[in-house]
């Protein structure tokens, strides 16, 4: 049977309609209302041009959320990537119980974020296991718990996030490692290259597309951090991030849709720029590698 163009379109129609109605329309609509003072309960609203964007730049809450988001992104991505790669290299070797380790490392990635956040909230509280461990090694954790202190709350959430994410990225690295031809390592070994040389001259260059993929995906995910903050601190103790700011502004308090939409577009712009920057950086690196 030959498929006609119209029947193909008909079959794709449910997805196209869903995309147009629930993705494209809200994206475009929120871009437009970013230039208005729309509040959900107020019946009339006005076109205010770039006022929302100007107000964002002088809003201390937004600046703080921006700062925290960058700390989160810059503080988690290198750790997640390096630890995930180390774990992938480890479980790529032949040893007894390898499957168990692979599964064990991956389990946090398939566990609901809310569950993990609640478990870690307990671990981080006063008298919790983390505080106990810290005391045992001579550190003095904050008196009321790690999440109730501006100096430790955000970093505690970041540590949890790294722990949770490494398993997923380990699996992607593992798939990348499997695709590297064994002959390259054999040839390098015959030429007298040691393990470190083999890693930097073969493994890392061959994994470049995987590294790029992980960096981009992880950046986008980290810029959008929300659930952890919502469950663990509700943005308190200097942990408010950009998506949490958008949520607070748009979906609680005064339902300031216009202002929240403008903030969401600032986040969109940052993620887009960051991704382009990563692409360019890694393309340059390719030449070096």
């Amino acid at each position, binding site marked *: 049977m030959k498929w006609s163009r119209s029947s193909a379109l008909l079959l794709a129609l449910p997805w196209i309609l869903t995309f147009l109605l629930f993705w494209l329309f809200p994206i475009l609509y929120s871009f437009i209302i970013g230039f208005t003072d729309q509040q*959900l*309960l*107020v*019946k009339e609203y006005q076109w205010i041009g770039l006022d929302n964007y100007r107000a964002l730049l002088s809003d201390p809450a937004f600046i703080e959320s921006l700062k925290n988001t960058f700390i989160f992104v810059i503080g988690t991505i290198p750790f997640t990537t390096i630890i995930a790669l180390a774990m992938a290299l480890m479980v790529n070797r032949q040893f007894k119980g390898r499957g168990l380790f692979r599964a064990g490392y991956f389990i946090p990635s398939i566990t609901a974020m809310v569950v993990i956040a609640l478990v870690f909230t307990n671990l981080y*509280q*006063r008298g919790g296991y983390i505080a106990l461990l810290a005391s045992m090694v001579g550190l003095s954790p904050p008196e*009321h*718990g790690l999440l*109730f*202190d*501006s100096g430790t709350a955000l970093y505690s959430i970041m540590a949890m996030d790294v722990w949770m994410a490494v398993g997923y990225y380990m699996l992607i690295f593992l798939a990348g490692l499997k695709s590297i031809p064994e002959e390259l390592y054999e040839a390098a070994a015959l030429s007298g290259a040691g393990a470190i040389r083999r890693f930097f001259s073969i493994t890392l260059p061959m994994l470049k597309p995987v590294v790029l993929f992980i960096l981009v995906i992880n950046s986008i995910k980290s810029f959008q951090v929300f659930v952890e903050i919502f469950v663990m601190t*509700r943005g*308190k*103790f200097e942990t408010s991030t950009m998506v949490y700011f958008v949520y607070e502004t748009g*979906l*609680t*308090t*005064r*339902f300031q849709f216009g202002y929240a939409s403008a903030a969401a577009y600032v986040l969109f712009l940052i993620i887009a720029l960051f991704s382009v920057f990563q692409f360019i950086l890694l393309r340059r690196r390719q030449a070096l590698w």
Partner: protein
Amino acid sequence: MNTRKIILLFCLLFVLVSSATAKTTISWWQFWTDPSIKPVIREMVDEFERQNPEIEVELTDLTWANGHEKIVIAFASGTGPDVVELGSDWIAEFAVNGHLADVSEDIAGDSSDYQGWGMADYNGRIYARPWFLGTRVLYANRELLERAGYDDLFMPVNWNDLRVAARKINGLGKGIYGWGSNAPEKHRLYKKYLPFFWSAGARIFTDDEMKLCVVASERAVAALDLYKELHDSCGYVANQRGIEDAFLDGKVGLIISGDWLLKRIENEQRKINFTTGLIPGLRFPGRSFLGGEFLAVNEASKQKEAALKFVRFITSPENQVKFCVANRSANPSSRTAQQDEYFKSNDNLQTFIRQIAMAKHPPVDPNWVFIETALEEAVEETVFGSALPAEALFKARKKIDGLEK
């Protein structure tokens, strides 16, 4: 008579009969879904429908997690219910945008029996009817008080009593705390500070037309000083639920909480020896935070008369008692209901009723949610940060001034 005429006659009869028996349907959105109370809500609705066969009530349950969002979206999209339960601090935000029906005339006859009108009063007009009120009182672990050297009649009535008792309990040993200090929880933290703020005689705005923000007053600073002192010297820090858990486990001696804790103690059959008392004031018992649940009618409702009738029925003294008995709650808005034997026979419920009489509600202001945030930030910066009380409250005043301009 030919066939066409017979059909026409039948159609006419059908229309007449249908319109004669057509019921007015009103929708009611409410938050009470607990298995102990939901059947009572249903029972009250059934009774209303029995007494008013021409009216049908469509009941929709909301949750505290996202009920506010649902109501806002429904009103904004013109699909709001005829009758809606609103928290006292939400009334102004709906009233200012013209979403609530002005019920000033409707309540004129029976306003004296009800408390809490002030919370529904926006610019001199009433936009909702008080259903239940909510306040906070002091809970004390009697056993810890006795171990700290107090007799079985003692209860802190002033700030100094509170300070000393909390310190003495805190000194009982490792793992025992004198005071339950609320973590920075949105919409909750300010309710822990306001009792001391009101008791000190502090105000948020001046009462005159100028409506100047005066949160950075000497009295407000004194209240925040005390709050910080309790936190620093003997505070067990957790969220509301965590503090109550610790109190019920016998780890914390004194906490501020609402009547839901009485219900929890009963439901979980806790063997705790506790007592309740009025919020300690400067020298004598002080003023607590006052909030409440209100029933409002949608301004866009096409069945306002039926909706108002339903609101009157649900908030009647008899139904308030029925509800409170089922929910084991202590705060009917009707003074007649408060005289019921159920409340008189229980000392803890009496504490709540007495505290309501001395409690004060926050200003009815569409900006309240931001004012509340500014106050909570002042408490956080003082208690969990390094700001001085006066400095933090001055900052709050500046934020509130900015909102009111």
